[in-house]
């Protein structure tokens, strides 16, 4: 289907302001220095709120356009005009990016407001808000770019903001290490993305979405598959998917609002956006799509299994994020049937996971930054608002009927079954099993945190957080409850995204949707019951039990993911660098230093010939003149 692009005029031409406003905010906050410490957080919130208002106005204006014309491109300036390579910085506002700018600015604004309270006692609050603004600007550029190069700029920008914010408390070695880990693992993925961009330029001569998608059908099948797999590598790095998942749980060393905004709601879903945006490429390659689904399935099971074993409340939520993004990957890998569903889950997940992280932050705020759930317990009565909002987010996440997670996750499982064949059964069954595991680990988290007998440290005095923190939590919990219903029944997301992904194909149901719904709900109920049976029935020990089955031991060690990285990449890498240092010190430096020493010694000896006696110089001159004369005579007469 051909989309008519509207001219970027009037309100629709002001999309660039979305990126510029938070960028200016970040610049002012960073350059303003200490004199802005008192009002830094207000500036930070104001820019994002302004952005949100602008985003709402833009999306409303876009929605008012007739069907088939719901897209605006706006070429701002020429970025790289070099011979064949013409890269323009341009923005593309279409239904897909519209959804994202609403999510980013909306959830972003709520989390900014929450951070005013959460970071209230931090002396570096201004710097925090500067980085957060920088993140929002980069993320908006990522989703608004009209080509892969602009997307890549935003992609690296969010990577930088993520690095800066994970290491926000840079004096803690754990935070600094986690930031480096995140940055390096992201780099592995970014290499895939940038190589994909190179291939696009080499084969199609352009990197803008419109040109690439128009020319994609003319490419060799192998090239399209390679592009798909390279883009998937980039997406895996940014979204914490197996095999590049290890950085995301460690990223929880950053402040909790960062975990909520960047490492749950927005940045880590950029991979899903990348694949959904590249839908015309993935539509052409069955292989690439299959690999995407398999990555999604492996990741969602991995995250769910590991999430069951951790005691750190933020890490459990982080593995839950890994797992839920696995669901989204599974859905986008299923092609036209799954794109809109994946975006639906992305949105509902954005609401409830951000709400859950803010709730966890509120708990930590009241418990002296304790994260070990074994030291919580019985907090339900002390923190009523946190408890209720968290419980709503929890119900939405496990897919309690008619809450938002129910709609999106059910649809994904349904679409997975519908994909047909043995793979369809594996994908659907795996997704359903993971739904049960999700119910188990989230119920475990709820029970250990809010129910049972208090197991607090002596100096803990749990208290409810101030209104500036609870109000965003309440709004997000409302979103967790109603977003799914609204996006399926009131404003159907599938119809809204049709101009981007094409019409949804008629589903060829392998299993009736109602059966999938009932089965999923039963599995979820079983998961909750299991958690009740294993965790809630008995006292939670303050120290984790030592004599446990090998499965739990493996899950506690995150299924040896870190161990694998360490033994396969880190240690050989260290050996390699050590060997290279040795070669550099002994080989290269030895050669250079040896040459210098040799020359020095030789010249020291040769120097002795300069005696300072005039007659010896005169003798050598005479000798030289005689030799020259002899040579001439020899040439002349011999």
């Amino acid at each position, binding site marked *: 289907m051909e989309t008519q692009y509207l001219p970027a005029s009037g309100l629709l031409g002001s999309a660039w302001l979305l990126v510029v406003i938070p960028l200016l905010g970040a610049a002012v906050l960073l350059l303003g220095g200490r004199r802005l410490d008192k009002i830094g957080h207000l500036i930070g919130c104001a820019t994002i709120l302004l952005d949100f208002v602008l985003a709402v106005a833009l999306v409303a204006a876009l929605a008012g356009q007739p069907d088939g014309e719901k897209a605006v491109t706006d070429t701002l300036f020429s970025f790289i005009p070099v011979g064949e390579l013409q890269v323009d910085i341009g923005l593309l506002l279409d239904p897909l990016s519209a959804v994202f700018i609403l999510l980013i600015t909306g959830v972003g604004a709520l989390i900014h407001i929450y951070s005013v309270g959460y970071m209230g006692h931090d002396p570096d609050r201004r710097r925090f808000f500067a980085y957060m603004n920088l993140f929002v600007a980069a993320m908006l550029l990522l989703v608004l770019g009209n080509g892969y190069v602009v997307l890549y700029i935003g992609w690296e920008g969010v990577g930088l903001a993520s690095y800066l914010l994970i290491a926000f408390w840079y004096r803690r070695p754990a935070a600094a290490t986690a930031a480096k880990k995140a940055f390096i693992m992201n780099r592995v993925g970014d290499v895939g993305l940038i190589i994909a961009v190179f291939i696009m330029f080499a084969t199609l001569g352009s990197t803008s979405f419109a040109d690439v998608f128009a020319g994609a059908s003319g490419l060799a099948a192998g090239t399209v598959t390679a592009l798909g797999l390279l883009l998937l590598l980039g997406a895996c790095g940014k979204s914490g998917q197996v095999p590049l998942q290890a950085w995301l749980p460690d990223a929880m060393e950053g402040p909790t609002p960062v975990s909520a905004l960047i490492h749950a709601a927005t940045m880590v879903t950029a991979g899903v956006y990348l694949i959904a945006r590249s839908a015309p490429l993935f539509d052409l390659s069955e292989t690439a799509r299959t690999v995407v689904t398999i990555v999604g399935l492996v990741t969602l099971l991995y995250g769910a299994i590991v999430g069951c074993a951790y005691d750190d409340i933020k890490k459990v939520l982080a593995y839950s994020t890994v797992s839920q993004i696995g669901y989204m990957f599974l859905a986008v890998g299923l092609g036209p049937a799954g794109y809109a569903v994946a975006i639906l889950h992305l949105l509902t997940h954005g609401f409830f996971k951000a709400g859950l992280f803010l709730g966890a932050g509120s708990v930590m705020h009241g418990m002296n930054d304790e994260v070990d759930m074994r030291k919580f317990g019985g907090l339900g009565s002390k923190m009523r608002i946190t408890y209720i909002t968290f419980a709503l987010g929890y119900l939405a996440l496990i897919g309690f009927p008619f809450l938002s997670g129910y709609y999106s996750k059910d649809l994904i499982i349904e679409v997975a079954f519908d994909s047909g064949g043995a793979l369809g059964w594996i994908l659907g069954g795996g997704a359903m099993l993971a739904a049960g595991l999700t119910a188990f680990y989230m119920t475990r988290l709820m029970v250990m945190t809010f129910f049972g007998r208090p197991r607090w440290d002596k100096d803990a005095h749990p208290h409810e957080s101030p209104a500036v923190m609870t109000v965003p939590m309440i709004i997000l919990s409302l979103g967790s409850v109603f977003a799914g219903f609204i996006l399926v029944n009131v404003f159907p997301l599938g119809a809204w995204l049709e101009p981007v992904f094409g019409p949804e194909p008629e589903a060829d149901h392998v299993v009736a949707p109602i059966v999938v719904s009932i089965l999923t709900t039963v599995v979820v109920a079983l998961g909750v019951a299991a958690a009740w049976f294993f965790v809630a029935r008995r006292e939670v020990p303050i120290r984790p039990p030592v004599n446990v089955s090998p499965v739990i031991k493996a899950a506690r060690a995150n299924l040896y993911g870190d161990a694998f990285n360490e033994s396969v990449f880190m240690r050989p890498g260290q050996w390699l660098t050590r060997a290279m240092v040795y070669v550099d010190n002994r080989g290269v430096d030895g050669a250079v230093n040896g040459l210098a020493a040799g020359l020095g010694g030789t010249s020291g000896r040769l*120097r*002795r010939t*300069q*005696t*300072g*006696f*005039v*007659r010896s110089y*005169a*003798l050598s001159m*005479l000798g030289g003149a005689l030799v020259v004369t002899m040579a001439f005579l020899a040439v002349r007469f011999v």
Partner: protein
Amino acid sequence: MTPTYYLVLAAILFTIGAVGVLVRRNAIVVFMCIELMLNSVNLTLVTFARINGTVDGQIMAFFVMVVAAAEVVVGLAIIMSIYRTRRSASVDDANLLKY
């Protein structure tokens, strides 16, 4: 009167001058030996001019004389100042410019 004798004489004078420069230490004597070498060269130039029937060599000899006169001025001035500072006219005493 063959020109060869003049050339032999010039060679003898030149050799005396060269050996004098190499073996004598008194700066004045070394200087005089240099002048001897210059004049032996002058003699050679004039002789060859005579043999070839041209005046090129004679003109060259005039140039050498002018240069020698200028050189004497500078050289004697240097020897004078060395003598004033070191109380010696030996060339071996002026050996600071070495390794």
